[in-house]
């Protein structure tokens, strides 16, 4: 391993600017005559718009749906049978369908003045009954989010089917219900968009805080009716995305439209209150699970219903159904069992439109599945980690096609559990539990194991038939005239460290030092096409594309080097950053200089394709390569307060070849912190009228430095046979398991009290309620 190539713990190139406050985010960009936009947002969750009273002197600065009549509403379709699409107008037309939906935009020299204008608008709304509760929403007679549908189902689908006679024959049957709270993703930087018309280029330039600049260009083109080459989308520094920024946002359309209309630069910067109230768009899952097992706790089959409150509209391009698709397909997770049925119900509600969040459905299914594994273990009276390890796909079964037809390419899942058992010291904890704690708290240990499908492409997204399906990933590399390298990728790096890891891959391929490699990304004007950064696809897809381009560069350089080395091109090899021939070597700088600046020195017959390579790449399988991990956690629960303290946290993870272990650890810590938020803190409660009740960060609680413990990460490396360097994606994984492991640990701690929790976040109130319910039950028996 070199000290800067694949596998090296090099510091991130991007940290230099970020740690010195020199990042450049959308709100750092100032242009002459820039104006700010503030949105009038619906105060009601559901209402008919009768009109909007706009004071006369504001009319030239206020825009409503009527002004945007030439804009095509967002219509995110999927070809899954039974799916109902919804039109999502960038500004509400006839109805408002969630509190926070944009109704009008006001433009002024400053945001404060634009907000003053918002305060003067009087929307005339007729309140309609809000559809908030998923159970009520699917009853006939419920109010309808989209009247023309006749019901509130985006989709009602079944995966798998035949459970045989398990209901009669299974020795052990365990039934549980689980719930995941509605959450808000809370990237440090919210959404932000600035647009202006560039007369020089004849282009609409849209700076936007997005994970997917190329897809946004296609989306804007579709909605604005403006040809793609007339649009340039630039994602500058982006302060976190997590899925929140992988869809076409109504505000992006509005601001882009306004820049065309007014011909001066305009911007809108989301604030935290807008983010919390209009962006509560993820993870409201409800589970009913019935597990069938033998006397040892080995699963025989699973019957489940997953209901998801997907909010008012289908988002582009991922739609209102990929969450359910991922839930039904991924619920079995790393476990091998033979019979499976899962009904997934995607319900339209008067809440912000659902957007897939880090982990996409898997944080939900991991919670349901892993809490169920532990419930089965308790039922059969065995150690949960043993039951878990026995139920996992075993290494000798690899590669393994599971009950939902997922192809697990490689790995030793039980080994991860065994290592976690040892690292968290289950034996020690069991001893401590016997003795009891001096302060009266109860301690418990919990595990969760998951697989992370990463870099899945055409077969998966194509089966849903959504508007943007990832296929070949493109990159370009260019040797500069002095022997450096420019890499251009269409993915966007917003915390993943790809400016470093992609350079490390190129360093391994070409031997060019890291400080001579520049990675350019996030700009449709300068980078090759990519659908973008999501689905943990960056390092597999863009990494693979960069490696492919580098490999193509070598034969392009060889004839030039051969000329200097007085040998045949096929006698030249690249070694240690030098082109070497049978007798002597030339640096890449000489090759570059000759090609670009002194072609007079080159012979007539030379490969004229040059030293700038654009190539497409896809991995050996397109169904995704599967990373995996086990999280293990020890908690102390105060039964008199319901307070949970995390005492120890261990992650044993395998994402194939580690391109940069520090970057993997950074991704894992960050994901785990979000998972701890999911487990213990984060929740957007809604009133029965559909009002979001946590409108500040005092009410929507995020974990902070004092809540995130020291996490001990251990790596194993099982290279994927299907990627350029054996790498697998890892971006989402950390967020998948924490709440499941913590839930299991809490339930382990509460076992002596006979209490169990199954709803996130596992707040003091919910834990105390569970204890009280167990006491009441014990008293009744």
């Amino acid at each position, binding site marked *: 391993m070199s000290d800067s190539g694949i596998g090296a713990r090099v510091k991130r190139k991007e940290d230099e600017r970020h740690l010195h406050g020199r990042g450049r985010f959308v709100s750092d960009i100032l242009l002459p005559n820039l104006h700010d936009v503030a949105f009038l947002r619906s105060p009601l969750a559901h209402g008919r718009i009768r009109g909007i009273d706009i004071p006369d002197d504001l009319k030239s600065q206020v825009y409503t749906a009527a002004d945007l009549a030439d804009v095509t509403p967002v219509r995110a379709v999927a070809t899954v049978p039974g799916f109902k699409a919804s039109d999502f107008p960038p500004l509400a037309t006839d109805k408002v369908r969630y509190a926070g939906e944009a109704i009008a935009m006001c433009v002024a020299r*400053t*945001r*404060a003045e634009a*907000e*003053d204008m918002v*305060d003067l608008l009087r929307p005339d709304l007729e309140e309609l009954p809000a559809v908030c509760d998923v159970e009520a929403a699917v009853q006939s007679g419920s109010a309808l989010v989209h009247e023309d549908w006749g019901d509130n189902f985006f989709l009602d689908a079944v995966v798998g089917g035949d459970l045989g006679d398990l209901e009669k024959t299974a020795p052990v049957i365990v039934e549980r219900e689980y719930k995941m709270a509605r959450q808000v993703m809370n990237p440090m930087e919210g959404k932000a968009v600035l647009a202006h018309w560039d007369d020089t280029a004849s282009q609409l330039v849209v700076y936007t805080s997005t994970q997917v600049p190329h897809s946004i260009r296609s989306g804007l083109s579709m909605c604005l009716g403006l040809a793609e080459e007339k649009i340039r989308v630039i994602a500058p520094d982006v302060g976190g995305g997590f899925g929140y920024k992988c869809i076409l946002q109504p505000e992006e359309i509005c601001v882009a439209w306004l820049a065309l209309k007014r011909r001066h630069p305009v911007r809108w910067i989301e*604030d935290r*209150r807008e983010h919390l109230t209009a962006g509560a768009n993820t993870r409201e899952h409800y589970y009913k699970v019935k597990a069938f097992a033998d006397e040892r706790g080995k699963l025989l089959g699973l019957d489940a219903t997953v209901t998801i409150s997907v909010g008012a509209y289908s988002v582009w391009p991922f739609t209102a159904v990929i969450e359910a698709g991922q839930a039904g397909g991924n619920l079995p997770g790393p476990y091998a069992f033979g019979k499976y049925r899962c009904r997934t119900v995607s319900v339209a509600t008067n809440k912000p439109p659902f957007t897939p969040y880090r982990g996409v459905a898997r944080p939900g299914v991991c919670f349901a599945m892993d809490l169920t594994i532990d419930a089965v273990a308790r039922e059969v009276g065995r150690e949960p980690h043993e039951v878990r390890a026995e139920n996992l796909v075993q290494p000798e079964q690899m590669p393994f096609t599971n009950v939902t037809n997922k192809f697990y390419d490689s790995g030793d899942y039980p080994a991860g559990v065994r290592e976690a058992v040892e690292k968290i010291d289950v034996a020690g904890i069991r001893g401590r539990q016997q003795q009891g704690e001096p302060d009266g708290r109860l301690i418990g240990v919990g595990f969760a194991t998951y697989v992370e499908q990463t870099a899945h492409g055409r077969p998966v997204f194509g089966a849903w038939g959504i508007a943007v399906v990832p296929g070949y990933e493109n990159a370009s590399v260019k040797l500069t005239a002095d022997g450096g390298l420019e890499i251009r990728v269409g993915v966007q790096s917003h915390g993943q460290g790809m400016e470093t890891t992609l350079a490390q891959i190129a360093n391994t391929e070409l031997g060019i030092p890291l400080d001579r490699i520049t990675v350019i990304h996030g700009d449709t004007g300068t980078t090759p096409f990519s659908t973008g950064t999501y689905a943990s696809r960056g390092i597999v897809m863009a990494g693979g594309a960069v490696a492919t381009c580098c490999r193509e560069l070598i034969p392009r350089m060889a004839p030039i080097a051969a000329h200097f080395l007085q040998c045949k091109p096929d006698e030249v090899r690249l070694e240690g950053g030098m082109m070497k021939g049978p007798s002597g070597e030339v640096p890449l700088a000489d090759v570059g200089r000759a090609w670009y600046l002194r072609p007079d020195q080159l012979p007539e017959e030379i490969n004229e394709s040059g030293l700038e390579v654009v190539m497409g790449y896809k991995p050996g399988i397109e169904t995704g390569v599967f990373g995996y991990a086990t999280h293990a956690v020890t908690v102390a629960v105060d039964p*008199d*307060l*319901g*307070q949970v303290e995390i005492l120890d946290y261990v992650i044993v993870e395998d994402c194939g070849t580690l391109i940069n272990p520090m970057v993997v650890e950074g991704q894992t810590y960050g994901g785990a912190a979000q998972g701890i938020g999911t487990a213990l*803190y984060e929740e957007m409660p809604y009133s029965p009228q559909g009002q979001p009740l946590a*409108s*500040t960060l*005092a009410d929507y*609680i995020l*974990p*902070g430095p*004092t*809540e995130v413990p020291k996490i001990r990460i251990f790596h194993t490396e099982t290279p994927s046979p299907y990627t350029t360097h054996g790498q697998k994606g890892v971006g989402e994984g950390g967020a998948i398991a924490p709440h499941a492991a913590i839930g299991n640990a809490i339930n382990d701690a509460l076992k002596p009290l006979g209490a169990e929790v199954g709803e996130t976040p596992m*707040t*003091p*109130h*919910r834990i*105390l*309620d569970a204890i*009280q319910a167990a006491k009441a039950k014990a008293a009744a028996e």
Partner: protein
Amino acid sequence: MKAAKFDYEAPASLDEALSRLAENGGKPVSGGQSMGPMLNMRLATPDLLVDLRRLDELNGYSQGDGKLVVGAAVTHAQVEDGALPDVTKGMMASVASDIAYRPVRTRGTIGGSLCHADPAADWPSALTALDATLVVAGTGGTRRIGIDDFLLGAFAIALNEGEVLIAVEIPVLSDAARWGYFKFCRKTGEFAETICGVVFDPANDIRRVVLGALGGAPKRLGELEDRLGDGIPGVNGIAAAIDALDIAFEPAQLVMHNTAVRRALRQAFGS
């Protein structure tokens, strides 16, 4: 969101501040740690903010007559750091050190906290347990008011239009005094789910058990106060005293409040 337009003045003297407030109906501001968010969310839209932070009359302290008089603009951090003589056997510094986090403590003030009167805030409960007396100034002069009469409810206090709080009088506790303070938050710096403050100092005639983080002003648990000194009240006594408040708590809340009282009493009187 951005604050609506307002004017800002920082008068040089208390008299000037009072007359500005009387004339213009402005709002006082001290540390801005509650006012700032209210302005930004446009929950408060005053035309004028009168900054009290640097007024001499609201800063520093004086001691005598069995009490410490603390300026209303003294910050939580100053109390935490021991800038005041310790007359409460460490109670005030301990309470201060657990308010929010340090950046909030370096700006937020005792007076601002009492006048904001958030039920979940610390000073309203802690200073009720300490039987503090508040000094209030208006254009007509100053008056003193006991904290029990000052805190009227959630975000409601007994200040008249144009009046400001200038100081807080804290009794100098005797050597034999005992105190306990327990607060439970879901995370550091988060507002409390429950608070209990206990102060027992017969020499000063203080026998107080105060339950905070309720819907309104903190409440004294009279049944327990009467029995302080006769050993630690049992679990049933605590439950009965909370019951006597006649507040409809959710079951989990009730468990937390009981725990807070138990633990504050245990801190005050040992196990």
